[in-house]
Structure formats: structure tokens, C-alpha cells
């Protein structure tokens, strides 16, 4: 079995075993087995990084075998510089999330852990898939465990949130399915994504395909104006669900832009690039302002995620190496930082059972170790140099300024809004005197919570101080993609 297949199916296998044999009476064993499965699934992804050959844009660790012969659908996997880091990132976040749900989830523990393990495997499948149908199957399949996570372990309005999430993202994806089928017919019966990259297509067809893919990926990212599902879902989802949703699932959409929209319809991508840039800037500025007035911490971080993902899509459609690389780096950095932010909110919610900023104040006095972690992650969210949050934003802003000064200026304003809402939230929650009784009685983080926050802190600082391993990997693939996008595919 190839490494990529192992990375996909190992967590799924562990999840299925937990589903089949786990019981709430053996919750302890279930948790440990889930943790073992998550760690093993993460370790399996590490040889991908060490064995990855730099300087080439070709797909690596390729696996290909026939799946549905009748329709020429293959089980075709591979990673390049664009998708490589998403695989270990997904597996890493899965480990953190299993640790995060350790004591909090007491009902249907085996199903909860199984949902996350299976979800992790499916998401890795999305990033590795090189066959259109395989990509689609994994892309849609991720909706199911997340829907269950929100719908079963979520908050008071979980049913509305779960339905909204499922239907909203599914609707966009249906247009993508039509596009995939059209490409299958036009290419003479192939679902191979790399073949589609070379397929000549007329301008009008490219436009239709671009918007079909846009419908799916824009909802997933989420771009303005189809972003409103994210705050509702984050608020209702359990902490681990929010972390995985923000850290990985949003990146499925951004990845889709790079793997489908831009290389398959390059002429349409260039023609409509300004629209995407405008929507991204609106996401960055409009949503940044909206984030500032939120009273619910999770909603604030959710809107902050929309703004950060606006940076990602902005970087992609700059069509220069700094912008695209910056967007990919921002995807990885946001994966660490947003997961950390949601876990911090989860730590507070586990104790006080409130996400309202007004319920807190002066938390640093009673939980100093936790506040230190929260400060680091808040700074990373605001884009402080030395943390992961800075690297991607800086590269995207540089790329934007190279593209057009005024777009770069507007993008840079995001840094101000990001700092404003993050620091203001931090000040109101953590700093100042303790005025609430619930805050007076708070106990600092225990060893488990310390471990999960420390893991993310190390990742955030490492990426911020030494981002070279992340950027080196993607150089060749990004340049190849841009060369491809710059060339016309009109017949």
C-alpha cells in the first residue's frame, strides 16, 4: 500500500473499528485507541515530507489503479508542492482534536472519535485525489461526518446549523459535478485531472466551467457573500468540530481553486480574476468590520476565518509567485492558528459554559498559563511577525502590491482590522480586573490542555520563525501552475 493510501485509509480503518466495537462503557479504551490511531496516521504522513523531492512540479507518491472501468474512473492519488503540506497538517490537527475532546465528550464517545478519524482520512483523500470522481467523492463525503458532529454534539441550534452547512455546501458542489461530467465528455472519456489541465476549451466553455467550480469552492472557502453559514456552524459545533472545520475544511475550497479552476479554465480565471479579487477584498474589509462588533467569541473567530481566507483567494488571483505561494502558506498558517483560537475558546467554554465576551474579564489573573498561550495565538491571528500568521499575509500583501498598489493597500488594511478585533477581544476577555464570579473560580489549564495548546504553539512559532521548509516545497509547483495559467487554452 502506498504512503498516500496509508495516510487516507489508516484513520478511516481506526474510525470504523471504533464505530463497530466502541462502547460508552469502555470510553477510556475508546479514547486511547482513537489517540493511537490519530498519532499513527500522523506519523505515516511524515515520510511524505522527508521523501519529497524539491525542485520538481511533477506529482509524487503517485498511485493509480482502475476503479470503475466502465466510466474510466481511476483510484489515482498524488501530491505536489501545492498539496503536500495539507496532508500532515490534516493528520496533525486530528491528533490535537482527539486530545481536545478527551474529557468533554462523554456521550457516544466512540462515534465522536470515529467521525473525526474518518473525516481526517477523507480530507486527506481530497488533497491527494487526481481523478475527478475520486475528488468529488471525497469532497462530498467529508460533509457527512461533519454534519453528524454538528448535529449530534452541537449546541442548542445544532439542527439548523447542520442543515445549513450541509445544504449550502452541497448546492455549490452539484454545479461542480455537472462541470466534472462535462469535462469527462469533452475530454473523450477521461476523469484524469492532469489530462483536463491540458484540455483545450473555448472561452465560453471555460467561463461556464470556472463559475461552476466557483460555486462549489466559493461556498467552501467561504467567500463573501456565501459565507454566512460559517459563523452559524462554528457557534453550534463542538470545539473539535470548529477546529477541524476552520483548520482544514475551508482549505478544501481554496485547494480546489488551485487544482481545478485556475489550471482547467486559465483564460476564464484571468478574465474573471478581478471579480475574485474584489470579492476577496470585500471579505477582508467588510468581514473584518463585522468581526469587530461580535459579542460571541466563536462568531468573532469565524468571521476572522472568513477574512483570513479572503487573503488566500486574493493571493491566488494575483497570478504571481509571491501571491500564490503566500496564499498557500496562509492556508497552512491559518490551519494552525484558527484551530488554536477555537481550542482556546473551548477551554473557556468548558469551564464557564459561555462564549459571550461579556461573561469574562481578567482571565489572566486566574489562568495565567492559559492566557500566555491565548496571547500567542491572538498575536498570530493578528499577524504578528515571528508567528505563522505573519508569513502568508506578508507574502500576499507583497504580491498584491506588485500586482496593483491600491489593491495591496486595501489588503494591508486587513492587518489593522485583524489586530483591532483580535486585540480588543483579548483585552476584554483576558485583561483587566476580575469582576465575574465565574472567572474568580477558574482553574488554570491541566496537563492535557497544556499539551494540545503547546503542540499548536510550537507549530505556530516554528512556522513564523523558519517558514523555509514550507515555502521551498511549493516553489516549483507554483511556478509551473502560473506558467500554465499564463498560457491560453483557447483552441
Amino acid at each position: 500500500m502506498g504512503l498516500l493510501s496509508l495516510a487516507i485509509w489508516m484513520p478511516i480503518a481506526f474510525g470504523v473499528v471504533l464505530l463497530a466495537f466502541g462502547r460508552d462503557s469502555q470510553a477510556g479504551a475508546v479514547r486511547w485507541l482513537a489517540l493511537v490511531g490519530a498519532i499513527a496516521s500522523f506519523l505515516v504522513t511524515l515520510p511524505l515530507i522527508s521523501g519529497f523531492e524539491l525542485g520538481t512540479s511533477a506529482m509524487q507518491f503517485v498511485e493509480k489503479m482502475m476503479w470503475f472501468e466502465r466510466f474510466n474512473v481511476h483510484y489515482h492519488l498524488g501530491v505536489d508542492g501545492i498539496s503536500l503540506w495539507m496532508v500532515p497538517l490534516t493528520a496533525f490537527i486530528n491528533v490535537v482534536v482527539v486530545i481536545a475532546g478527551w474529557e468533554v465528550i462523554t456521550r457516544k464517545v466512540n462515534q465522536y472519535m470515529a467521525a473525526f478519524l474518518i473525516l481526517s482520512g477523507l480530507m486527506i483523500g481530497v488533497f491527494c485525489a487526481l481523478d475527478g470522481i475520486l475528488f468529488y467523492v471525497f469532497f462530498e463525503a467529508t460533509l457527512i461526518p461533519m454534519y453528524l458532529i454538528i448535529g449530534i454534539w452541537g449546541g442548542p441550534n445544532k439542527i439548523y446549523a447542520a442543515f445549513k452547512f450541509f445544504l449550502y455546501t452541497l448546492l455549490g458542489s452539484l454545479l461542480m459535478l455537472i462541470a466534472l461530467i462535462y469535462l469527462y465528455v469533452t475530454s473523450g472519456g477521461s476523469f484524469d485531472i492532469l489530462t483536463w489541465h491540458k484540455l483545450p476549451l473555448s472561452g465560453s466553455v471555460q467561463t461556464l466551467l470556472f463559475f461552476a467550480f466557483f460555486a462549489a469552492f466559493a461556498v467552501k472557502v467561504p467567500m463573501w457573500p456565501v459565507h454566512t453559514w460559517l459563523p452559524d456552524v462554528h457557534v453550534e459545533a463542538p470545539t473539535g468540530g470548529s477546529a477541524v472545520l476552520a483548520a482544514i475544511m475551508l482549505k478544501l475550497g481554496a485547494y480546489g481553486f488551485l487544482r481545478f479552476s485556475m489550471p482547467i479554465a486559465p483564460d476564464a480565471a484571468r478574465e474573471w480574476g478581478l471579480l475574485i479579487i474584489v470579492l476577496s477584498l470585500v471579505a477582508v474589509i467588510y468581514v473584518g468590520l463585522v468581526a469587530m462588533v461580535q459579542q460571541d467569541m466563536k462568531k468573532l473567530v469565524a468571521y476572522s476565518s472568513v477574512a483570513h481566507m479572503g487573503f488566500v483567494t486574493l493571493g491566488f488571483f494575483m497570478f504571481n509567485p509571491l501571491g500564490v505561494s503566500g496564499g498557500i502558506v496562509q492556508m497552512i498558517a491559518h490551519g494552525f492558528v484558527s484551530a488554536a483560537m477555537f481550542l482556546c475558546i473551548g477551554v473557556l467554554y468548558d469551564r464557564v459554559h459561555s462564549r459571550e465576551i461579556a461573561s469574562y474579564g481578567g482571565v489572566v489573573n486566574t489562568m495565567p498559563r492559559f492566557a500566555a498561550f491565548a496571547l500567542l495565538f491572538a498575536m498570530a491571528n493578528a499577524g504578528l511577525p515571528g508567528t505563522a500568521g505573519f508569513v502568508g499575509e506578508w507574502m500576499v500583501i507583497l504580491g498584491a502590491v506588485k500586482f496593483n498598489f491600491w489593491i495591496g493597500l486595501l489588503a494591508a488594511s486587513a492587518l489593522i482590522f485583524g489586530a483591532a478585533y483580535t486585540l480588543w477581544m483579548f483585552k476584554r476577555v483576558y485583561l483587566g480586573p476580575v469582576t465575574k464570579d465565574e472567572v474568580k473560580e477558574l482553574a488554570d489549564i491541566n496537563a492535557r490542555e497544556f499539551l494540545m495548546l503547546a503542540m499548536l504553539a510550537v507549530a505556530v512559532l516554528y512556522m513564523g520563525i523558519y517558514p523555509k521548509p514550507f515555502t521551498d516545497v511549493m516553489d516549483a509547483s507554483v511556478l509551473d501552475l502560473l506558467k500554465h495559467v499564463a498560457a491560453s487554452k483557447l483552441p
Partner: protein
Amino acid sequence: MVTVPLVLLAIPSVVIGFMTIEPMLYGEFFKNVIFIDAAKHPAMQQLGELFHGPVAMALHGMTMAPFWLALAGVVAAWYMYLVNPQVPAFFARVLRPLVVLLEQKYYMDWINENILAKGARGLGQGLWKVGDRAIIDGFFVNGSWKVVGLVSSVVRWFQSGFLYHYALVMILGVFVLMTYFVWLA
């Protein structure tokens, strides 16, 4: 408490200034490090021609307006705040608007808090409540499922539940299609 450090800082400042002014500004200190194009930027060269040593510069400075104005300021401050405080009180009454402007730091803090910060928060509230909640969520998202529900509540009245009604409609439909394909197409 601050006086002693100030004195301790002032003395070396004078000494260092005295020792370094000629070599640094007009001498060879920066000889191979800083290059000035005297043709385009003659200021330093002209100043150098008028410089006759640090003592001469200090003595000459004491005969010029800035020194006398600074001294006048010290004397005025001593008089106004130590001898006769009625004088600054009078000016504060007469020039009240100017005093307020300076005390409010040109209203920069007020502008920052009431226009920039409140404005941003107000704009954020408007964009959230009107843009996101009312228009996008209220009209488009929730509106779409409400429309589906509304249409369904009307359309369901067409379901009679009787098999023979459905069979009749199917036969009529086949008749229409056949009419179209046989006669008209």
C-alpha cells in the same frame, strides 16, 4: 528624583559635544565613510567656513536671538509660575479656546475614539445586521427555504392521494406527448 539623572546626562552631553563637533562635522572623522557632493549640497562646506572652534561657536550663539529667546522663556516661566501666577491665569481666561485645544491634544484622541473607532464599530454593526443577517441570511438563504416551504404548502393540495387520479393524469400526459411527436414535430 529625575533631576540627578538629568544632570548626570547633561554633563557628558556637553563634554562629548565639545570634543566631537569639529572632527565629526567639519573634520576627518567620517572621511572614508560619508561622502558629500559639495557641488550639489554645499551647506556643510559653507558652515565649515564659518566655524571657528566649539568655544567660539558657543560664545557667538550667546549673542544671537535663539539664545535670548530661550532665556526669556525661562525667565517668563519663572515669573509666571513662581512669582505671579495671576499672569498665566489671565492668559488662560483670555485664550481659553487655544488652551482647550492644546489640552485636548488637538482632539486627536477624540477623533480616534469617536470618529474612527465608533465609526468602524457602527459600520461593522450595519454591515452585520443589514448585510449579513437581513439581506444575505434573511432574504437569500432563509428566504429560499421559506419559499420552498410556501410553494410546497400550496402544491401539496394537488395531491389527492387517489391512484386513479394519478393514472388519469399520466394517460393525459402520454396523450399530449404523442400528439406533439406524431402531429406537430
